[in-house]
């Protein structure tokens, strides 16, 4: 019975998990067992000069060559869409993903594509000169390649694992759209803000580094250190109780592991789905956790924190203020 769904949605799952976990900002985010590899694929184009033709290595190992600034982008990644708006390249957008909701212009964008069930005909009809793909959902990559539509495929789980990787995406999209100056300015200002945070947490002795449980949904899915959300906690010198997730990017913790880890802080990214500090406090047995006993249960905006776009720095600052209220105002 339930196998029917798994069979039917199996291929869809692979990316669905990634998308919802990172792109959509859903409170229920979790991901399949995607091993975190130790050899991050270098994002070429980050350090190379913006001269065309530009070559970019895709997550599937293929190389994408772009010979001139793109003008008709189909962005299947809400994070990439936010970047494109932030660097002023929105005129090059032909369509955005259904879940894009920031800025307002993206939310109200007239042409939207469902990234979960991408309609290849709808994409082809737009005659795009670039499709930005954050994951290969249901063989869409092969189909687009078959139609000779250039695809910038940079997998959220494989290639965007740190905040630096997000900055790399900004630089890359700046080059691709020919908005290099604007992208450089944005990266510089974001880097400056990140540095302020880094300085602020400097000198926190390791025994004072708070342990954190980051809750994605009410069945205890969380993030491992090998994700860009996990990277935020590394920057903040906080210890993620899920650690490397035994190789899973978005693992599901057992309740007893959470209670035994005794986190000092609980971060709720699932407030949009009704999980509140009060409902966490009411969970049987959770009163034994320091964070619950001391009322250190904080909520974050799931959209901010789960999208690899410029607002990830907003999320970082927000977390810094909430975790270290005395150090950051």
């Amino acid at each position, binding site marked *: 019975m339930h196998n029917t*769904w798994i069979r039917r949605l199996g291929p869809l799952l692979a990316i669905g998990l990634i998308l919802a976990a990172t792109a959509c900002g859903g409170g229920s985010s979790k991901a399949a067992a995607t091993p975190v590899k130790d050899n991050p694929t270098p994002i070429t184009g980050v350090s190379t000069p913006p001269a065309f033709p530009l070559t970019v290595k895709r997550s599937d190992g293929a190389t994408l060559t772009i010979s001139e600034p793109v003008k008709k982008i189909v962005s299947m990644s809400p994070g990439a869409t936010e970047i494109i708006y932030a660097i002023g390249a929105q005129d090059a957008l032909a369509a955005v993903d259904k879940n894009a909701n920031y800025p307002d212009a993206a939310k109200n964008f007239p042409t939207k594509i469902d990234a979960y069930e991408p309609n290849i005909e709808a994409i082809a009809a737009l005659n795009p000169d670039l499709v930005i793909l954050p994951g290969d959902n249901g063989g869409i990559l092969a189909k687009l390649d078959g139609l000779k539509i250039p695809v910038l495929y940079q997998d959220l789980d494989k290639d965007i694992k740190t905040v630096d990787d997000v900055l790399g995406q900004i630089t890359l999209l700046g080059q691709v759209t020919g908005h290099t100056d604007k992208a450089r300015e944005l990266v510089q200002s974001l880097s400056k803000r990140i540095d302020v945070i880094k300085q602020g947490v400097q000198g926190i002795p390791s025994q004072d580094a708070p342990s954190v449980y980051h809750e994605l*949904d009410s069945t205890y899915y969380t993030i491992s250190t090998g994700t860009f959300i996990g990277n935020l906690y590394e920057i903040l010198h906080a210890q993620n109780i899920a650690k490397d997730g035994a190789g899973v990017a978005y693992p599901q913790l057992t309740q007893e592991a959470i209670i035994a880890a005794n986190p000092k802080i609980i971060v709720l990214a699932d407030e949009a789905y009704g999980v509140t500090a009060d409902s966490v406090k009411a969970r049987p047995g959770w009163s034994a956790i320091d964070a619950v006993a001391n009322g250190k249960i904080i909520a974050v905006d799931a959209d901010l924190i789960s999208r690899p776009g410029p607002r990830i720095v907003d999320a970082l600052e927000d977390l810094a203020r909430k975790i270290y209220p005395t150090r950051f105002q």
Partner: protein
Amino acid sequence: MQIARPHRFARTASADAPAFVTWRGLLPTYALAALATFAVGVFAVSWGTVHIAPQTTLRVLLGHLPFVPAGEHSAAIRAIVWDVRAPRVLLAGMVGATLAFCGAAYQGVFRNPLAEPYLIGVASGAAVGATLIIISPLYVTVWLLSPLPPAAFAGALAAVALAYGLARAHGRVSTTSLILSGVAVSSVCTSIVTYLMLTYNTRTLAILNWIMGGFNTASWKEVAIAAPYMLLAAVVIVPLARLLNVMQLDEDEARHLGVDVERLKLIVLGLASLATAAAVAVSGLIGFVGLVVPHIVRMIWGPDYRRVLPLSGFFGAAFLILADVIARSINPGYEVPIGVVTALVGAPFFLYLLRREGRRGHEAA
């Protein structure tokens, strides 16, 4: 039920059944099975990623009995043993028992070895109920009651009632039409869930997570919610085991022997569906247990429903408790979907028994 004197036929019903056994004669078997299941439960509570000594576990558990001193334990240990592990193990046992028991009952009524408790719409109906709640703004874990289990429960019962109503003709419900209407209702429900999953794609994962089932969020609350339905099914259906034995002959023959077949079907299917709906409501859809455990029991202890029904319950409980232990132990601290474990562990064992049975049959011939 007053309608038959089935003990006369129990002897003739299955020609290969060895000697006639009375209910009383079965008591030692039940007691042994109960003891074994209890032992599995105690083991499961003392087993976990956080190492807690068995005697500590036992003392924490016993400390909740009246007049037993609680002893000095850290809050974390008390919380893990009493608030997390004990209800989790108990719920897994209850759900496993219910699925296997109801699977056996369904197989008895349908006289079909492929019958399982999800056959006539419980699972897919529950999935529609759960999905509707997950995508709605009602999906709020209010600190005492989540609307999810009642919605899944209602969905399950609505689907079964629909299948039953559609199959009913001239006051009778033929098992064949019931299976067919069950399949039809299930398909409709499945497509509704699939459609909703794709439409509300930010909630796809919450829905799938529910469908895959598990006991990670188990608490005493779920235990209390589900227990009455499960007990009711057990208490009413077990005494009907002899009538189910008679049913195995042929429906018409059973009718001639004085069994009110329609009433038997309605009672057994109704209560089994009710209990299954309760199990699904608190644990999601866990496959394989309801189908395979009754067969394993039959292969080992024979086809008499007075054995098959209760032993399926005990065996199903032990099986799912152990499957859950494995699910939380593969990656210490992290969960593995329990459906993966039930199929991975259960299927090879089932195949082994099937092969052994086949060889034995061959040698006998």
